[in-house]
């Protein structure tokens, strides 16, 4: 590895990038703390005002943010949990077990990553309409409960991190496959499972295309769909829209603040092997 020390210029440019990355978020909070009239003046505000509480409250009631946040938490955690468990099971089978059709099935998994979501959105909608699932959370949970990327990610990790001897030893001791999964695979996969869970959670939280098709604003939308209602001008107040955006982003930013390093590590790890 290279160990060139960074000069002042490098730091200056990086600080600039960091500012560019964080500024829109910070400004969301500033705008959310101001009034609509103040936002319609130049120069735009650069520091916080005193209206945050009021705006949050209006956004909370007008866009039904409380229910939307709860729905999003349910969707994102269920999708993350399902993806992690199913991906670990399949990843383990592909990495360590021998069975007929293994190569073919794995290339099928990778192949599914190339299918654009638009290609299935119409029939998927017809399907959930027939099941009367429109506006129900299962409409957004079930279609995203498994992930080809997840299977791929776990296979790559387990192929390296789980010694085959360990699996063989457990077998010789008479452990069934399910016991091996529980007592050997899950403990070995824990770091990768955590990373995959966080990546999936972020993705499910921010998912937009399918939820806006499957959930209307009168039903039980996710935060992203509820935000769209604010943006479309049911509430024309810009500061309230920003308060809504803040409410929809803050929980994830907190997750990011706590687990940011692991998420960064996960993306870099997935990149090297992918």
């Amino acid at each position: 590895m290279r160990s060139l020390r960074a000069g002042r210029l490098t730091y200056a440019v990086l600080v600039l990038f960091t500012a560019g990355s964080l500024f829109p978020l910070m400004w969301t909070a500033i705008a959310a703390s101001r009034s609509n009239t103040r936002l319609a003046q130049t120069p735009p505000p650069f520091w916080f005002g005193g209206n945050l509480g009021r705006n949050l409250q209006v956004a909370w009631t007008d866009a039904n943010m409380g229910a939307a946040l709860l729905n999003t938490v349910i969707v994102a955690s269920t999708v993350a949990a399902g993806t992690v468990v199913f991906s670990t099971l399949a990843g383990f089978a592909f990495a360590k077990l021998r069975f007929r059709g293994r190569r073919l099935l794995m290339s099928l998994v990778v192949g599914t990553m190339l299918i654009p979501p638009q290609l299935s959105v119409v029939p998927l909608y017809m399907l959930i309409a027939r099941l009367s699932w429109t506006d129900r959370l299962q409409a957004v949970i079930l279609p995203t409960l498994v992930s080809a990327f997840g299977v791929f990610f776990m296979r790559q990790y387990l192929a390296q991190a789980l010694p085959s001897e360990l699996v063989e030893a457990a077998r010789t001791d008479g452990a069934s496959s399910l016991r091996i999964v529980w007592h050997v695979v899950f403990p070995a996969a824990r770091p990768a499972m955590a990373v995959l869970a966080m990546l999936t959670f972020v993705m499910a939280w921010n998912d937009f295309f399918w939820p806006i098709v499957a959930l209307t604003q009168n039903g039980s939308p996710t935060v992203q769909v509820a935000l769209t209602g604010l943006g479309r001008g049911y509430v024309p107040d810009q500061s309230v829209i920003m308060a809504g955006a803040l409410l929809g982003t803050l929980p994830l930013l907190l997750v990011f603040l706590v687990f940011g390093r692991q998420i960064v590590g996960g993306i870099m790890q997935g990149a090297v092997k992918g």
Partner: protein
Amino acid sequence: MRGDEGDGRGQVWRSRRYRWDLRWSPYAFVAPFFLFFAAFGLFPLLYTGWAALHQVELTDPDSMTWVGLRNFTRLWDDEFFWNALRNTVTIGLLSTVPQLAIALGLAHLLNYKLRGSAFFRVAVLTPYATSVAAATLVFVLLFGRDYGMVNWALSTVGFDAVDWQNGTFASQLAVSTIVIWRWTGYNALIYLAAMQAVPGELYESAALDGASRLQQFIHVTVPSLRPTIFFTCVVSTIGATQLFGEPLLFNGGAGATGGSDHQFQTLGLYLYEQGWVNLHLGRASAIAWAMFLILLVIAGAARLLRGREASR
């Protein structure tokens, strides 16, 4: 030693169960993925092709009238389809090229020995954790014509205000900015990971040959990263063809038209407009297939390009 070892029938049963377990468990482990994929991925995929050959309305999705290829021929004569295709290409180029170029430079800087490198990595990735909806709503305000911060900043250095929502090029640039903001850090980390795998001797020998840092970057880093760059190009291209949330929400109250004059309506948005605003699910399916075919063409072109490069 287990107590029932001597029991012959128990042993037979156990070894049968053992073989059964060994043989079928792998299938049980991969089954959930394939079951869900069959139900919510493969079936819809095939059915889209079927629906594209029918007239289907959103109001009554169960009654389908066979129309053959008419949805596709209509698309061919549809100026809004071509407009959306053009916009998708322009916005795709405007967002992907700068995004990947900046990401490459950023990764190079992050690859130096840095104080607080973890902080910088997390900070540049933060936009990735921001949803399309939240990000776009903020950028709509920042790009406001009269009171937006961008125009205010331009005015302080003596430029005229730009109408970011109504100008064709201006609006496409603004939409691209949102994409660039959200994805640059993510791509930078992918490049950074690849850079850290480049063997240090390559740099050492380049330095011995008197190559400057910039020359090392151009002659050592970029060539070593070629597969990764190719990978990010493919992923970003797929993302660009599917662009949907940014143009939908960049558009004050107008909804799915992509601006007052369709100036930033993408294919993804056009599909949504046909299916869920105009209620023509059959036509939406035809657009979906057209998008897929375009992707296949791009993929084929990329393959050709790559093949030629490899044989060089």
